[in-house]
């Protein structure tokens, strides 16, 4: 009885906590409250993930109205995995990043900031939990608006044009999505995703549906920052408060990718003839180009955060590449990479947030010698970086291994794709090496020379996250099981 209410608790918890956080000015109070609420959601998400491994999908009727008339929450293995990423990243970033947040966010803004943080978490969780197309739009807007606020909350004026660009492009993406579901609703008369899957069969060859496929895919690709539409991403990541970067880099684009996969595999492919080929033909070139171009830009980029932002665009490419292979192993690779990349990139950005409490500038020249002064922070950074590169024994290796296997199964282009993965991994080695070279340089910069290591509790949080990348490299059971169940669930519609 009590466990049946878990989906409602996870979607309503963070949004209900947000107004409370906004009410009470008082810096440490609102931080502690937000961290507590976030940790509680993580615990609930964990319980939900365990429950989700046992059944295909947990359905929950909000307001007890039966779907499709009311709004349905639908928790699958896929959504449970995303929920773990969101709430986990939020908790680790909040708990570990207190010192960095205290220096980045002005005291007068803090209670609003933590309220916005909880709203962002609530919005993202709301998206992955929802089984209703329009409801996804509403929560997409909650999370987007909250994310814009988080990015603009720091003191760096350069964040402002960046966030304006993100706001404009994000709104266009969301409105495209809204046009798409409007056209689908026009032809099917329903907004519930499961209902849509069955009813769309009657209208498959009608033009509004094809246009809807275009709008939904394009809108979500825009929001996910897939290669040619990524222009909002580097600056938004680079100039936001450092802990915010760690949080959004770990989960926000992945949630848009989740919606994209959910729609394209469950709603469109099951019913539209040839859609799988179009999807692959459209996204695979973008993914490959994105991996290569973004990695190349990362190799030449001089600013640490912008370098990692371009690396993120390349990693989004991996996820899309896995999905565009149209096989269970490919999708498994893509989805498990969402988890592994979130872990690695979140850790790396958190480490950067720690460095930024000691340094004011983060160009590669500015961090010279910091590795000698803060060996533990940089050590955790390197462990996560190894996972990003995909060295054996790390979580990143698991996803790349599955990606290579899936590519080899996919026939003629397979060998080429394997080459792309290998080349881009070498490129990652190069840009990570540039960081290592700068950080352990023998001529430290002026600020770096006086830097001290951060306190032990912060290091403990950081190393927990870093070692998780190793743990899930050696014991990939849980994420892999959830990803595989997600992949078979998504592809189940194809057969």
């Amino acid at each position, binding site marked *: 009885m009590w466990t049946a209410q878990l989906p409602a608790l996870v979607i309503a918890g963070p949004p209900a906590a947000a107004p409370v956080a906004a009410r009470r000015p008082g810096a440490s109070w609102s931080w502690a409250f937000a961290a507590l609420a976030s940790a509680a959601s993580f615990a609930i998400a964990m319980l939900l993930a365990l429950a989700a491994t046992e059944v295909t999908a947990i359905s929950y009727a909000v307001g007890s109205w039966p779907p499709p008339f009311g709004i349905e929450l639908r928790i699958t293995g896929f959504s449970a995995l995303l929920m773990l990423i969101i709430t986990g990243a939020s908790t680790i970033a909040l708990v570990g990043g207190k010192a960095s947040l205290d220096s980045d966010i002005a005291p007068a803004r803090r209670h609003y900031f933590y309220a916005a943080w909880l709203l962002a978490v609530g919005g993202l969780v709301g998206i992955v939990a929802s089984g209703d197309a329009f409801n996804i739009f*509403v929560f997409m807007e909650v999370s987007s608006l909250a994310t814009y606020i988080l990015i603009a909350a720091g003191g760096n004026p350069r964040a402002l044009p960046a966030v304006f660009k993100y706001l404009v492009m994000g709104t266009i993406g969301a409105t495209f999505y809204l046009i798409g579901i409007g056209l689908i609703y026009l032809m099917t008369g329903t907004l519930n995703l499961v209902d849509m899957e069955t009813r769309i069969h009657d209208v498959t060859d009608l033009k509004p549906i094809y246009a809807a496929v275009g709008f939904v895919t394009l809108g979500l690709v825009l929001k996910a920052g897939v290669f040619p539409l990524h222009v909002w991403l580097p600056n938004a990541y680079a100039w936001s408060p450092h802990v915010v970067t760690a949080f959004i880099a770990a989960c926000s684009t992945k949630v848009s990718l989740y919606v994209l996969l959910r729609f394209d595999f469950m709603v469109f492919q099951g019913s539209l003839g040839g859609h799988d080929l179009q999807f692959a033909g459209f996204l695979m070139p973008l993914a490959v180009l994105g991996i290569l171009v973004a990695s190349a830009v990362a190799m030449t980029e001089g600013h640490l955060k912008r370098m990692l932002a371009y690396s993120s665009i390349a990693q989004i490419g991996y996820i899309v590449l896995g999905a565009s292979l149209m096989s269970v192993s490919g999708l498994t690779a893509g989805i498990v990479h969402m988890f592994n990349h979130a872990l690695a990139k979140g850790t790396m950005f958190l480490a950067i947030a720690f460095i930024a409490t000691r340094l004011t500038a983060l160009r590669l020249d500015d961090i010279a010698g910091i590795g000698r002064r803060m060996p533990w922070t940089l050590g955790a950074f390197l462990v996560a970086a190894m996972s990003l590169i995909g060295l054996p024994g790390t979580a990143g290796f698991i996803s790349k291994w599955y990606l290579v296997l899936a590519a080899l199964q996919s026939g003629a282009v397979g060998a080429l794709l394997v080459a792309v993965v290998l080349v881009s991994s070498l490129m990652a080695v190069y840009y990570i090496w540039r960081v290592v070279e700068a950080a352990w340089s023998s001529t430290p910069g002026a600020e770096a020379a006086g830097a001290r290591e951060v306190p032990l509790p912060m290091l403990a949080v950081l190393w927990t996250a870093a070692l998780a990348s190793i743990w899930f490299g050696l014991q990939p059971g849980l994420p892999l099981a959830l990803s595989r169940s997600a992949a078979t669930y998504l592809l189940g519609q194809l057969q």
Partner: protein
Amino acid sequence: MKYFGLYNYWVFTLLLMIGLYAVIAKANLVKKLLGLSIFQSAVFLLYISMAKVDGGTAPIIQHADEPQVFSNPLPHVLILTAIVVGISTIALGLAIVVRIREEYGTIEENEIQARDRDR
């Protein structure tokens, strides 16, 4: 009536194009937000147009015993939501533009970019 129906969709298309043009081509940030507003309004028109039923009235059931034709209430509900989402986005965008004006002294995109390069 049929002609009117098609006309609604044409106007939707035109407004969509005008709004999108302003968002992409205009350098002034306030103009971009106005364009975004037009762009979103176009989608409202699409939804409300699809809800119309011939000879229907607003979906308010005054006398349940008489048979009456009502327009579809669901798109109305969705667009109520979307209008509110729209003004929330615009309010936030305006706040950001005000701060940009204070930090950069201009609200023209190309001048902001030029200033960012100088930093």
